[in-house]
């Protein structure tokens, strides 16, 4: 191998459009722009996620990754941009939906796990009640069905069922994340959004939560979008990775390519900074 002075800034080689992937994307976002006052939070961001894939989104604090995830969960609207999900009965730009329609769509088709369990759970309600609430919103009224499906979702999230009636406030951080996960997957969502799901957990608990996610991915082929600033988590979980900086996508690629052959100066700095 020979060293030369660099002559031009690196541009990743252009890639062809998918030819072999016959399935349509579950998620397609194009041209998302969002400003908060003078701050540009997202600038011309596009993302595509195919069925069964895990898309990892990495970037430093303030890069716009969590704002983008909130858009995917229809909690916020962009100044401009288009968002489509390949789910039954959905056509057109989801940002055009009113609040009620958004809420119904999210309850039925999108699950989310937040870093902070207080955002995702009612801490004083029982764990099983938290999961059942999701089913109630979607229209289920039969108590026995609510109970059995909550139990099933908690079990799939590897939550100890003898504690299913404990309140999240009484649970450890790792257990709270499992309740969030159970709530998120109770309706078998088309899309599971994970916003720093293991940040702040002990390393051993983090490994357990990641293992649960991996198992769910393997057994149920759930499509996931995972936001994390922890490159180890992204490397363990993601098939493809999108790197964000200052509201823009600076690079995207297969996870092993992003980690082994990063192209953009920022991605190189990020990857090389990993311990």
């Amino acid at each position, binding site marked *: *191998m020979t060293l*030369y*002075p*660099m002559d031009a800034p690196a541009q990743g080689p252009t890639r062809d459009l998918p*030819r*072999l992937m016959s399935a349509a994307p579950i998620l397609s976002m194009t041209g998302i722009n969002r400003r908060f006052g003078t701050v540009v939070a997202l600038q011309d961001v596009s993302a595509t996620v195919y*069925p069964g*894939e895990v898309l990892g989104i990495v970037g430093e604090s303030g890069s716009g990754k969590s704002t983008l995830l909130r858009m995917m969960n229809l909690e916020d609207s962009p100044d401009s941009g288009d968002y489509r999900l390949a789910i039954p009965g959905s056509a057109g730009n989801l940002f055009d939906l009113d609040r009620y329609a958004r809420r119904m769509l999210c309850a039925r088709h999108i699950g989310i796990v937040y870093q902070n369990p207080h955002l995702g759970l009612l801490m004083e309600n029982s764990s099983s009640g938290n999961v059942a609430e999701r089913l109630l919103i979607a229209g289920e009224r039969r108590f026995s069905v609510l109970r059995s499906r909550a139990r099933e979702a908690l079990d799939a999230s590897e939550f100890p069922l003898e504690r299913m009636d404990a309140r999240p406030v009484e649970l450890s951080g790792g257990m709270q994340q499992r309740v969030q996960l159970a709530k998120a997957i109770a309706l078998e969502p088309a899309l599971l959004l994970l916003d720093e799901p293991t940040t702040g957990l002990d390393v051993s608990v983090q490994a*357990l939560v990641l293992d649960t996610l991996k198992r769910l991915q393997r057994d149920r082929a759930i499509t996931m979008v995972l936001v994390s600033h922890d490159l180890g988590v992204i490397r363990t979980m993601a098939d493809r990775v999108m790197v964000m900086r200052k509201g823009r996508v600076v690079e995207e690629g297969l996870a092993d*390519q992003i980690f082994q052959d990063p192209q953009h100066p920022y991605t190189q700095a990020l990857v090389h900074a990993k311990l």
Partner: protein
Amino acid sequence: MIVQTAMPAASASLAPDLPVIEVEGLAKHFDMHHLGQRLDAFSGIGFRIMPGQFLLLTGHNGAGKSTLLRTLYRSYLPQAGHVWLNTAEGRIDLARAADVDVALLRRREIGFVTQFLNARPRVPAEDLVAEPLRLAGRPAAEALAVARAALAEFGVKRELWAAYPSTFSGGEQQKVNLARALILPQRLLLLDEPTASLDAGARAALVRRLAALKAQGVAMIGVFHHPGDVAGLIDAELNLDNKETSNVAK
């Protein structure tokens, strides 16, 4: 993980006179932004491999042997050239193919055997080996049975099958790695020093397996620290020091 699509499984059923892979003018360099420098790995690489052929990559340390394998697998992005893979769906240029297509091809057509196992915490050896089959849609019990047979083939002791490989010795980990990497049928196998750290028994098992795959029409490109391990399988050599390809007399 990418779910199943209608794409047919890998098979050697494509026309036998069609190369599995054709590489043209392939070039790779690394831009090291923090140094403001460019590291040239190789350029002008070209070769073609027919079904059942085995190409050995040779050259001194740093000649770019492993870099070439990783570029063919698309862990590295090439700057120029083409890597044409003849698939059942037509000719695909791996140098430019969409990421999702590369991910699918890795599942169905291209295997990469490294010298290290990527052991995940809390995953037993037999589950790790069975995972590619599970992801390809095979039932759990069947996948586990095939995985156990593969572990036995490479000499992993039965009492270790349910244990976590992260606690195994380097040699034992490599046996698990081989069992996993070779569990799915493929048309092209990339081999990056797979015999390093193996004992004689496992090395012989690997060579037997590679010979069987070769007989089935699987094409292989490999780097071996001791090419004598696979001497009987080699059809051609590509020396990356001078980029010359030579056929090996049988």
